């Protein structure tokens, strides 16, 4: 029983991170039908931003001292949102009328550009991520270890999910997003500024990825330029599992994926090397039996 609760806590905290990243995928896909391959790499860039904010760095000859986490993390989330805006503005908007495959290829290009820019600027050697003291430490409840980081992850994820749901389902911009995901042309006739809504989608998605990325870096405290690929693929799987385009579905899909992955490792510890393969088999399985996902609408076959 203790083992069960222990793994459940691990699974939920991993799943929360997938959920945060998956929402960015699902929102962008819902609005402009683009698999944003660069999303995982945006997350990776956010971990580097947080790393430099926490440890201090020199910029243009002047040294910027290290900042405490309650300054560093909001700044990181803000800057990553700005990065999302820049990517959309520079790389995706010029392709708005182009065939879908062109936008996908550009997304791959952006993904590679981010990975290799970080590699060129900061080097390929993994960096140890300095976890602030506020996130370290473990509580024990009846023999079950409850890392305070897991509590943070759960709390922050719930806060951000709540904010996102409010944005999507209770604000005018949210109505705009949902309208565009139904039909791209008609909302423009209704006076909705489509470009503004799409930019907002990218900003929100990237900010959520930054929140997920920071906590990812504290959970697995090592960052490198290619760390975003695997979480990216898995979060996309979570989005498809929940029903792509559906924000609630992405959150549920993320949690389910996290729990399945942790239970696999717990049940078959010898095959832990294959844990990255699970998301892939789940993806294939969903496409075979329920392509619309848990919460999604039926897709035409």
């Amino acid at each position, binding site marked *: 029983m203790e083992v069960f609760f222990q793994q459940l806590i691990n699974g939920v905290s991993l799943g929360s991170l997938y959920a945060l990243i998956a929402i960015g995928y699902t929102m962008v896909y819902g609005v402009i039908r683009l698999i944003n391959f660069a999303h995982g790499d945006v997350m990776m860039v956010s971990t580097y931003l947080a790393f430099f904010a926490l440890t201090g760095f020199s910029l243009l000859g002047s040294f910027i001292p290290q900042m405490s986490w309650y300054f560093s993390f909001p700044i990181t989330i803000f800057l990553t949102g700005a990065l999302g805006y820049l990517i959309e503005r520079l790389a995706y908007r*010029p392709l708005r009328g182009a065939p879908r495959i062109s936008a996908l*290829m550009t997304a791959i*290009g952006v993904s590679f550009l981010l990975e290799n820019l970080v*590699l*060129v600027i900061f080097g390929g050697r993994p960096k140890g991520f300095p976890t602030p003291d506020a996130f370290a430490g473990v509580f024990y409840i009846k023999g079950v270890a409850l890392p305070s980081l897991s509590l943070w992850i759960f709390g922050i994820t719930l806060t951000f999910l709540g904010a996102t749901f409010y944005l999507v389902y209770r604000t005018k911009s949210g109505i705009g997003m949902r309208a565009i995901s139904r039909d791209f042309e008609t909302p423009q006739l209704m006076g909705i500024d489509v470009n503004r809504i799409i930019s907002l989608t990218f900003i929100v998605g990237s900010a959520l990825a930054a929140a997920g990325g920071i906590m990812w870096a504290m959970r697995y405290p090592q960052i490198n330029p290619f760390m975003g690929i695997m979480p990216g693929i898995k979060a996309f799987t979570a989005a498809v599992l929940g029903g792509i385009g559906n924000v609630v579905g992405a959150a549920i899909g993320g949690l389910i994926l996290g729990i399945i992955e942790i239970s696999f490792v717990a049940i078959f510890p010898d095959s832990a090397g*294959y844990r990255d393969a699970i998301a892939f088999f789940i993806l294939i399985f969903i496409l075979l039996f329920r392509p619309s996902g848990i919460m999604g609408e039926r*897709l035409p076959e």
Partner: protein
Amino acid sequence: MEREKIINTAATVLSLLALTGLLKWASSYESPYIVQILNTTAIYIILSTSYNLVNGVTGQFSLGPNAFMAIGAYTSALLTMTPDEKEITFIIQPIISPLDKIAIPFLPSLLIGGTIAALFAFFIGFPVFRVRGDYLAIVTLGFGEIVRVFATNAISITNGSLGLKGLKQYTNIWWSWGWAVFTVFCLVGIVESSYGRAMKAIREDETAAQAMGINVFRYKMLAFIISAFFQGIGGGLLAHLLTTIDPKLFTFFFTFNLLIMIVAGGLGSMTGSIIGAVIFAWGSELLRWVEEPHQIAGIFIPGIPGMRMVIFSLILILIMIFFRKGITGRWEFSWDWVFSRFGWKRKIKIEKAHD
């Protein structure tokens, strides 16, 4: 009509003979470095043209070539290695039976490698093509990672992260260019047939194609499987050219390079893919310059690893935004075009009108 067909065939045969002569001259007089690049060029042509069949001609976005190459490379390498070589190579765990006793010649090993890659393509394509959407991209991307995970972890088959070493260098200029010519002929044959027209119809408008009675699932699947077969062959050739393979060789970088070749050459055009492959093979050798240390005007610039990939990804994004047609657009090379350049008038073929 018959006369023109004979002249076209003669022109093709003559240019193949010219290519043969050129390769013979190159392999006997030039340095091993040039021969190596020539071999790479041929393998790139195989990979890019077959990749183009899925991404360019059929309009489905696959990211799987690196996975199919890995499958082809490992299969053919395991089949050509002699039992003694396997015993020396597999030091962590012995290789599983019956692979430990098998050793077959190069050509059948390539064909088996290609066939197994095609088989995997079938199992991936089946769930993906049943649904509409861009799932192929993410599923093939995931598949590439899975192949890497298995190549690293299934030690009794793949020797894990140590890889397979000391393969015999079977691939020479004749094998690689022979396969390149064969691949191009096969693929051009497919593109110019009714199969190719069905694939192009799917690319332009899936719903309309379906309404015209085209079995969309079947043609997507066919393109994907054929492409995977040739990518498996390309992987086998590459394995026996480099003589060493390990899981790190077949990362997503390879697929990304192929993507640049077909996009720069002209998405959907086989001529474009060939031009893209040739430019990439030689251009990426020249671009090694940016990763080496230099002394320019008295200033020392250290080598920057990864700079080439930054340049490549910028090239890809810029091509997609400003120059989406690539070098050739959808134009294809034909002898009719060559002769018309020399003012030799020919009957205009009606079937050419569709492009």
